[in-house]
């Protein structure tokens, strides 16, 4: 089974330029996540999709960041214009479905599978 695919793996741009990252989740996974991982830090959630709908974008800087997930499969994350502080690794993850409380009878945990990430350097 193919994992989460991301491209490009590396991107170097100058500040104020636009940039876009692409993610192809595992086939059949309805939930897709974009994380940002700053150097020396853990990943932080930017946005979560349930099929085509962005259900949690509270951490997405909407003045310069945008995302879309057309047809509920592939997703694109865009930054325009990029700033020096945007240098980071952008991770995409997917899971089969949303999680249900493990304490409930028949509760299911849907593991998040991560892609290799896109390392962005803004000069």
């Amino acid at each position, binding site marked *: 089974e193919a*994992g*989460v695919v991301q491209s490009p*793996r590396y991107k170097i741009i100058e500040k104020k330029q636009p940039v876009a990252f692409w993610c192809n989740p595992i086939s059949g996974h309805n*939930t897709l*996540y974009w994380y940002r991982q700053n150097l*020396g*830090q*853990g*990943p*932080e*959630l930017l946005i*979560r999709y349930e099929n085509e709908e962005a*259900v*949690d974008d509270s951490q997405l800087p909407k003045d310069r960041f945008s995302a879309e997930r057309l047809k509920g499969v592939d997703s694109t994350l865009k930054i325009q214009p990029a700033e020096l502080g945007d240098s980071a690794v952008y*991770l995409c*993850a997917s*899971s089969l479905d*949303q*999680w*249900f*409380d*493990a*304490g409930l009878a028949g*509760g299911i*945990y*849907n*593991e*998040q*599978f*991560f*892609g*290799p*990430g896109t390392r962005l350097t803004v000069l």
Partner: protein
Amino acid sequence: AQSVTQLDSQVPVFEEAPVELRCNYSSSVSVYLFWYVQYPNQGLQLLLKYLSGSTLVKGINGFEAEFNKSQTSFHLRKPSVHISDTAEYFCAVSIGGATNKLIFGTGTLLAVQP
């Protein structure tokens, strides 16, 4: 709000020695706990998780972790490490429910030396 603390940014250890990577969490509600591993230039991979039941959880690659509610800890252990275990390890928490939001710690680099 939930938070995760990994006090050790780097843990050097010799091959075949035991290791413990520390993780403490803060939450006003019950949480679920996870350890992920990140090899260089790769994405995160789930090592193990605590959802309920036995507080000693066994994962892949010989790792295990113990959930201690009174000490709000979830330390990761391995009795004998290999060079191939060199990687970044992240502890994470989730409150579960209808979302699958993970809150990650800052990570611990396990550096295994020959």
